[in-house]
């Protein structure tokens, strides 16, 4: 049993190396995460009008995140493989609950009120769904057969459907992406891939006519022509591109960004935080951040490639690419390539639930990494 290994290792005298191994933490990953979290605090301080309110709260989230990550890392991948189904069921249950007793903010019902804090179950689905699919596919044939693919797709679309009802199209797309990556990495047949792509294209019009709400369509139209309604729908995107563009090479300096400091930038500490960073630290800052992300994703892939179990590989690989997609969607949305959807910038945006989900993911990654090392 792994647990016995853990206890034995702790009890064996043999220096810090042993303890580090025993704690099962990947130090490179931890280092990158800490750097990103530090950057996050800096930018949030500036974006929040130089008040420490959000910084303090985010610091609590970060500390909690590292603790959660450490705890998750202590359980071997097998445990998570086994628990995946239960987590998935719990996730579906809470998503259903949101539809009935959720808290409505800004016209969307996404939150569950737990009394002391609000929880966004759809965020947790970003980790529950790939866990579920990875455990399901790893248990069965690789590459997945038709039957398994169909069932996996159904497993993906159940939570996606529920999230669309909130409505939260952005998160829904990200959840399906995270599930899809598992299938893709598991070696989904090319014919399936092509037909899925064709199906998706064919589904676009019906998505437009039947699924998308008016405000969502508006966001797509706004992307095409933001100048049409400068003070209304176009405001966010005009202000964010202005903030980014006015940053230049090296930016206006920390807390010196006029767009963010004078409140022209909406949601500057959450979804649009990259605009603050781009304005105050310039393209150099953006590239530095991208470099850190590259390291992070690279490390995740490295862990995936070295994983001993199929489940470990799939979950590590899908977390890596899901992370990439999150980053990509956020950076494109704020810079006006994609329509505005509610997608925070991983590890940088203010917000507890998203951060916690990410740390759970990194915890699982470490669990996978630790598993391969101890073998």
């Amino acid at each position, binding site marked *: 049993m792994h647990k016995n290994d853990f206890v034995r290792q702790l009890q064996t005298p043999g220096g810090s190396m042993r303890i580090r191994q025993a704690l099962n933490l990947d130090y490179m990953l931890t280092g990158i995460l800490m750097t990103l979290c530090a950057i996050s605090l800096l930018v949030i301080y500036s974006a929040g009008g130089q008040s420490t309110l959000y910084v303090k709260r985010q610091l609590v989230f970060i500390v909690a995140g590292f603790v959660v990550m450490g705890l998750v890392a202590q359980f071997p991948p097998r445990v998570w493989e086994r628990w995946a189904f239960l987590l998935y069921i719990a996730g579906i249950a809470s998503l259903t609950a949101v539809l009935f007793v959720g808290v409505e903010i800004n016209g969307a019902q996404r939150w569950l009120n737990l009394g002391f804090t609000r929880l966004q179950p759809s965020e947790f689905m970003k980790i529950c769904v790939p866990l579920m699919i990875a455990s399901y596919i790893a248990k069965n044939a690789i590459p997945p057969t038709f039957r398994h693919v169909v069932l996996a797709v159904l497993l993906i679309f159940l939570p996606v459907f529920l999230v669309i009802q909130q409505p939260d199209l952005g998160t829904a797309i990200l959840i399906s992406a995270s599930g899809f990556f598992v299938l893709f990495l598991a070696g989904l047949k090319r014919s399936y891939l092509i037909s899925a792509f064709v199906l998706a294209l064919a589904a676009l019009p019906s998505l437009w006519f039947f699924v998308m709400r008016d405000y969502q369509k508006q966001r797509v139209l706004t992307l095409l022509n933001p100048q049409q309604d400068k003070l209304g729908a176009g405001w966010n995107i005009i202000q964010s591109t202005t903030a980014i563009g006015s940053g230049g090479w090296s930016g206006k300096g920390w807390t010196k960004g*006029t767009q963010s400091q004078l409140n022209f930038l909406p949601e500057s500490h959450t979804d649009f935080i990259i605009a603050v960073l781009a304005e105050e630290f310039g393209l150099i800052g953006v590239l530095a951040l*991208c470099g850190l992300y590259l390291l992070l994703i690279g490390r995740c892939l490295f862990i995936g*490639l070295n994983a001993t179990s199929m489940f470990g590989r799939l979950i590590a690989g899908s977390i890596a690419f899901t992370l990439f997609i999150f980053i990509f969607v956020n950076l494109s949305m704020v810079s006006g390539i994609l329509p505005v959807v509610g997608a925070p910038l991983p590890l940088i945006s203010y917000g507890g639930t998203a951060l916690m989900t990410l740390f759970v993911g990194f915890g699982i990654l470490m669990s996978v990494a630790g598993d391969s090392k101890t073998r």
Partner: protein
Amino acid sequence: MNDDSTFIDLTRQHQIFVTRVIIACIVAIAMGIVIVARYFDLQITRHQDFVTQADNNRVHMRPASPSRGLIYDRNGNLLADNRPTYNLTIVRERSQDMDQLLVDLDHLIDISDNDITQFKKRLKRRKPYENTALKYNLSERERSILAVNSFRLAGAEVSARLTRHYPNGELFAHVIGYVGRINEEESQAIDTVRYSGTDSIGKIGIEKYYEDSLLGQVGNEHVETNARGRVMRVLSKVDPLAGDSLTLHLDRRLQAAAHAALKDHRAALVAIEVKSGGILAMVSTPSYDPNLFVSGISQVNYSALVQSRDRPLFNRAIRGQYPPGSTIKPIFGLIGLQNEDISAEHTIDDPGYFYLDGVERPWRDHNSKRGGHGKGVDLAEAIIESCDVYFYTMSVDTGIDVLADYSKQFGLGRITGLDFPGEQSGIMPSKEWKRQARGEPWFNGDTINASIGQGFMLATPLQLAVMSARLASRGKVLEPRLVKARNGVEKPAAEQSAVIDIDSEHWDYMHRAMRDVVHSPRGTANRIRKDIGYNMAGKTGTAQVISISADDEYDRDKINQRQWDHALFIAFAPVEDPQIAIGLIVENGEHGSSTAAPVARLVIDEYMKNQPDQQLGQR
């Protein structure tokens, strides 16, 4: 399953995974390149555009209001100043939902429907991002309510502004006039840049005539604002230049004395400094409080002013045109002497009426009981006792055109050229005038009517005062002036003024006669001579409001008070070296001697009281 196949299977699974990771990586790198290209495009290629846009967002140019020039009387008393007031203004672009904002504001402080109607009107005329006033003169309480709630009132702002104030209220309303909100018509005509810092403009009076000097020069400041339009800091500024301050010839003491004496009448008085032509007092009663107009007068107050039968808004001093009556006699007498139609020795017999050859109807002598002024009436007596028949007789000889010609030099029949808007010209009739205005030929009867300042003749109180001043100065033609100095610098007087061509002995004669109007027991204004410490010259006048047929007596009891005769009086003093000249009229005051003359005495007393003694004694 043996170990080998499992191993091969596992290897194959791993290979599939590796291949897929590589494919995904390639796609991801491609997507990453798109992102980087996009940020490069925004931050480097189009950097300048966005810098401009960001600056346009935050930097706004605000006009800095110049403070309007102050107005003083000759002794440095403030007649118009500026006081800070606080107004609630709205920038429409910065309010998310303006109607909602108005509702929210109405919950906090009282905003009347009228405020909103006016506001919407102003909103149509404003430029983008311009402050539009919603409510003026916020109280301290309203200001603090708004300050506390400012965070949820995006677009609304309390702005301090200097507002015109007239400390003397109605006392100078007709002279100084007032400023008011720029209306639609005016906004078409003005230079919008010059007026970008103000929403007021001189509407009437000195405020209007000297608008250009009083306005000042607008400054500007570049300010950084946040997304809610709140000013964060001032980046640069060009200070505004205050308007010129004006010192008027007016003397508040004389103005107050005249106003106090006349305020219960419909009347007007103008006092002129003889040596300079400066207006010492200009009163028209009833008056009104000009402060009411500064921030927009309420409908109720405005209706009250407009509908009053006494017409308080009507500036009688310059726009009221009255028959000058007998006040015209001194200058006609002078003209007759100069034209040699009469002489100092010339006398007539006055039976109390006058017949013109070929006209059946006689002209009555209004200033004597039946029987007339008797035999041997000379010019002096005709002035002192105001004998009409003397002038009836003389005027037929002199002829209207000679009378008109000279009278114009005394200021009648044309605007005096006062630095003031809206002056009326009155009427000094002539043959030419009648042909053009009435399309009729001139009759001798018209001349006879004109000879006692009746008939077609009309003059404003200002013209009476100017005539009196020119009588006093022995024919020096000085244009009357209100403004004495700008920014403390006095305007040089005109080097050479025209002089009316009348011989010196005639002036002496007429000054003596006019002195006797006041000082002789037979003088029509003799009731004001009591305890007078100086020599005053004067001439009373009565102007008919309704015509009474020659056979009827004027009976005040039979006619409405508003149709009673107007009382007029002209005067100057001291006779030896005239300093002050006055023209005044009291509507329906009946007799110049009883209602008008005492007021002139009061004002001149006030003036003489403040003259240094030695100046009186000189010359």
